[in-house]
């Protein structure tokens, strides 16, 4: 739940996650008043400036805000016995493909699902792991040792990059810029493509996705067109939310795409 209040022309934004509240606003006095009045009603702990929210570390500095999930990443590595593993530089080998029903020894489904579930939460600040997590999650029905190897590689990548996070600069680009990309017929079973997009206002990624497309496309142009459509849907949603938070963008939202034939189609 997210709530906006306007008191004496000053805006206050409150976001609630069950019993955790974060709030921000353009007037120091209004935010302090809000805090005091809330503490009167409920038994609350004043955590001061936001530092740690839903296992995400938040560093508020003069030139911007940095968020990362180092603690969460280390816990995941420890849980699956990978804390001493050798780090690798990429989460997945380039053009690595596996089948759902490949040969090889079956492994425990529950164990596999636990790794996927744990990695899923890591993607809250790690867009670089989004593709590999959604990729390995496709094999949860019949995981084999080969699938587990792909998962372990993602964990080894996480080991080397546990400190990675997102840094939002306060002098970054104010425009809402989005990038789209898609592969072509990346899935071995049904030859569907995977589309992905990322939204980058103020230099840091805010919203991202990597999803297998629902329809089979016949060319890279069409595959990227599908990705562009998904991205536009998200853009419309983002602009609506921003409007409700009194942060309406006057300019256009730029969608950046690397295929000139797709751009001509639009």
């Amino acid at each position: 739940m997210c709530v906006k209040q306007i008191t004496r022309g000053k805006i206050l934004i409150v976001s609630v996650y069950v019993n955790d509240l974060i709030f921000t606003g353009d007037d120091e006095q209004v935010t302090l008043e809000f805090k005091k009045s809330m503490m009167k009603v409920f038994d609350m702990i004043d955590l001061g400036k936001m530092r740690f929210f839903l296992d995400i570390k938040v560093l508020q500095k003069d030139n911007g805000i940095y968020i990362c999930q180092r603690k969460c990443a280390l816990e995941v590595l420890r849980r699956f016995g990978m804390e001493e593993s050798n780090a690798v530089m990429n989460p997945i080998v380039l053009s690595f493909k596996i089948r759902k029903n490949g040969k090889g020894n079956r492994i425990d489904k529950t164990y596999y699902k636990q790794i996927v579930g744990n990695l899923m939460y890591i993607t809250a600040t790690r867009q670089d792991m989004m593709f590999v997590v959604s990729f390995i999650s496709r094999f949860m029905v019949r995981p084999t040792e080969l699938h587990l190897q792909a998962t372990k590689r993602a964990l080894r990548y996480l080991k080397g990059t546990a400190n990675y996070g997102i840094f939002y600069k306060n002098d970054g680009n104010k425009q809402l810029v989005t990038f789209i990309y898609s592969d072509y017929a990346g899935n071995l079973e049904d030859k569907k493509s995977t589309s992905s997009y990322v939204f980058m206002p103020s230099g840091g990624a805010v919203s991202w996705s990597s999803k297998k497309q629902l329809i089979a496309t016949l060319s890279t142009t069409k595959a990227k067109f599908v990705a562009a459509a998904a991205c536009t849907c998200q853009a419309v949603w983002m602009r609506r939310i921003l409007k409700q938070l009194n942060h309406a963008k006057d300019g256009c939202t730029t969608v950046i795409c690397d295929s000139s034939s797709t751009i001509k189609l639009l």
Partner: protein
Amino acid sequence: MRGYVFGEGLSEEETELIMALVTFVDPISYEKAVKSYKWRKSMDVEIQSIQKNKTWSLTKLPAGAKKIGVKWIYKTKFNEFVEVDKFKARLVANGYAQQYGVDYTEVFAPVAKMNIVRMIIALATQRNWPIYQLDVKSAFLHVELSEDVFVEQPKGYEQKEGRHKVYKLHKTLYGLKQAPQAWLVALRLTLLMKGSKSASVSKHCVSNKSLEVKS
């Protein structure tokens, strides 16, 4: 591993030592936890918190009413430096014993989407706003419960007189199906009251489908 950690017949100090070595293994039952001082203390804190909030009162179970079991949950909380922060014991009701339409109806309780949280952070950065954080202590124990719910007495804290009595809940207990929803309704009411007359409150109930925005 677990079998060794919870080896039976160990003295309290030995158990403490082993627990300190593998702190991330939390006890899963009351019988295991009661052997250790830190968990006994954390349970006392939880019971105190329940009593302070006037969560329940002891009554006789009315004829035809059903009582719901309660359970202790133990969790070691870590801070941001992956050091042990505190040992937390939480008394929860077995919500699975509740029946839809009889014991509860509405359960919808939206939470902030990660996208929105990140967007608020990005927004605050652009405008140089500081972001503050508040945490509600035992949030669900604040909320008035509208349905009649009876729970059994928790293990280790049975009343000497009236062993067969049950607790009637006045506030929601963790684990009840309606607890998150009731808490959110209460919080929303408070937030609505806080805003002056010109306040505009919008709630984003956002589902996974990217285009559904209800406001």
